């Protein structure tokens, strides 16, 4: 094989291997950062759209539509305000105050699903709701719930785990758990012997976070407001397939169970010998929900329904998709700052390419002069330097793309574990192409100054005997 301009450039890079690797690495980090930022930016919107699914309107008593969506769909904070089932009846969102999940009286509404999300199991948020949550609501549009194992709940003291909860707790169908009132890392799985009449599979459950006999006594002194509802274990009847939504990190149980747990707690606080709470003896005040997921029968009537709900006193109506768009606009300015930082990092890494190539020029004047004597034109020398600079950037871009693929997977997994937001780790090849080509062009641009220096090399002066 003959020597080519590229083989001369390769030789040069090899000669300055350490500098080449360090410079290419700095480009790689910048490229990876930029690709990840662009991809996260694109996927974050999609991630937020997951979760609201096929719901049209969210009805709650929260302070604002945005907090309503964040609290009742994304489990951001425990909702502070409640709606009573009688309120829903008044709004026409149910026609039976005794039966949550009954068909709505308002003919514009296809379904209305009450949800209550102020409790927790260990660090996972709970969602007390009705069977309709699984039968009618879809976490992402046209993506129905699927069970990995078991069934959806159909009795009061049953619970269904989101995919992440099941994976991280290693709990299985048939195990029993206790729900904590409020958000905390309390709550626990039942262990044989802990609670008479409860059973557990024979696999090992960690219950280091549980001191069963003291939770009740110290309920008011937990510091985080959490209180373990120890009297009512819930048996796991189903584990959901992942949905890529925040619901993967949630624990779902019947809203009746939640009403009973809270009623018992309230009655215990109010009177020394409280009457045991039963679904039959719950007062209207004890039948509270935080929000209602609503889907209208047609898109055309969403507007009028939403306006009507919004004007109802004490009601906050939110169009989840609009709130997500508004949220992304709020996040957008921060997003642009982060992008600007990413671009600044890329430019600084390109400057490092220029410095690396430029600083090597001093040592290479003789080589350039020899090539000129052998017949290389000034233009060809300029081409060699630009190629070298672009090649360093190319190495960095390729390594950066590889880093980005790994980083996106890590970031996606971490986001899912920590926030329940599913960020698609897939990187759009168009972004790779655009950032890759831009990096290579910037790399070539970084070679301009060293190339000018090479262009000006005095052949005769550079070939003088040393010393």
């Amino acid at each position, binding site marked *: 094989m*003959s*020597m080519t301009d590229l083989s*001369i450039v390769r030789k040069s890079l090899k000669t300055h291997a350490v500098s080449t690797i360090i410079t290419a690495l700095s480009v790689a980090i910048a490229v990876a950062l930029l690709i990840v930022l662009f991809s996260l930016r694109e996927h974050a919107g999609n991630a937020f759209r997951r979760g609201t699914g096929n719901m049209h309107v969210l009805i709650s008593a929260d302070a604002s539509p945005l907090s309503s969506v964040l609290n009742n769909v994304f489990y951001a904070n425990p909702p502070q305000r409640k709606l009573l089932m009688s309120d829903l009846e008044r709004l026409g969102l149910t026609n039976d105050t005794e039966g949550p999940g009954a068909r709505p009286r308002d003919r514009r509404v296809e379904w209305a699903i009450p949800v209550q999300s102020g409790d927790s199991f260990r660090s996972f948020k709970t969602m007390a709701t009705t069977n309709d949550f699984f039968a009618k609501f879809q976490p992402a549009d046209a993506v129905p719930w699927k069970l990995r194992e078991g069934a959806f709940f159909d009795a009061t003291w049953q619970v269904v785990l989101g995919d992440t909860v099941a994976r991280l707790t290693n709990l299985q169908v048939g195990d029993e758990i206790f729900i904590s009132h409020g958000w905390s890392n309390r709550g626990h799985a039942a262990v044989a012997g802990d609670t008479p009449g409860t059973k557990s599979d024979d696999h090992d459950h960690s219950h280091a976070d549980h001191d069963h006999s003291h939770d009740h006594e110290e309920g008011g002194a937990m510091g985080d407001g959490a209180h373990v509802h120890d009297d009512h274990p819930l048996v796991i009847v189903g584990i959901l397939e992942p949905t890529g939504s925040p619901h993967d990190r949630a624990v779902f149980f019947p809203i009746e169970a939640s009403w009973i747990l809270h009623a018992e707690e309230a009655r215990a606080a109010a009177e020394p010998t409280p009457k045991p709470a039963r679904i039959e003896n719950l007062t209207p005040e004890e039948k509270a929900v935080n929000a209602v997921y609503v889907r209208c029968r047609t898109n055309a009537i969403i507007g009028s329904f939403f306006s009507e709900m919004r004007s109802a006193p004490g009601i906050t109506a939110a169009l989840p998709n609009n709130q997500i768009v508004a949220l992304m606009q709020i996040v957008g300015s921060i997003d642009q700052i982060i992008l600007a930082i990413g671009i600044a990092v890329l430019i600084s890494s390109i400057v490092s390419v220029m410095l690396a190539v430029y600083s090597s020029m001093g040592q290479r004047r003789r080589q350039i002069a020899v090539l000129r*004597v*052998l017949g290389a*034109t*000034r233009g060809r020398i300029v081409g060699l330097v630009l190629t070298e600079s672009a090649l360093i950037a190319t190495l960095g871009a390729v390594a950066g793309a590889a880093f980005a693929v790994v980083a996106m997977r890590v970031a996606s997994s971490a986001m899912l574990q920590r926030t329940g937001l599913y960020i698609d780790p897939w990187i759009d090849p168009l972004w790779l192409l655009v950032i890759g080509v831009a990096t290579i062009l910037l790399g070539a641009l970084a070679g301009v100054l060293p190339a000018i220096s090479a262009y000006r090399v005095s*052949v*005769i002066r550079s070939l003088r*005997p040393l010393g």
Partner: protein
Amino acid sequence: MPAHPPQTGVDPSANHGPGAASASLAAPLRIENLVFRYSGSGFGVSVASLQLAPAEQVLLTGGSGSGKSTILHLVAGLIDGSGGRILVAGTDITRLSPGARDHFRGRHLGMIFQTFNLLQGFSALENVMVAMMFSDIPPREHRPRAAELLSSLGITSPASPVEQLSVGQQQRVAVARAVACSPALVLADEPTASLDPDNAQDAMDVIQGSCRRVGAALLCVSHDPSLASRFERRIALADLNSAPAPQVGAAP
């Protein structure tokens, strides 16, 4: 080698009359009324006429700073004269654009330096092949030709980086590189200045032998008097250059 009396520097074969151009088309080198002056200095080079016949080997002698290397640089097209013509293999290189002159140099000229000026980090073979990059030799022939050339010059490890070769071997690689493209003319600039007398004679054997083998003319500049006996034609720069003598401290 028989000793020859130094010549006057005036090329007896020079023909400045009508038809001279066609008569000397094949001459590897012909200089006519070449004038060069360093800026800011009264010193320069002025050569009325010089011509080398095909495969002729000429020694250009002169003291340090007398302008020998300047003439080589002018002939190589690395610097521009202010007047006159330099014809290499029939082409007036003073009329070529800088880029065309570079191309021309790669195809028709070979250069040998006192310090070899090999490409560090490149093997002996690669050093020779790099020279062929700028020639008309088909790429597929580069490697076999370079290998054969190095082998003929006794380089047994052509794949070794040149910095690992002995000084003598490096000199041979430099010679191989200069003749690799079968140039019409090889310019040697003080090729033995950094060698001891024995190695200097060996080096000149290699240089002169290689030029003969490829049919290249050789213009060798040196201030080493021991080389005189190796050349049939010797030219004292003082006789050739009619420009004023250099001033003390002036840059050549």
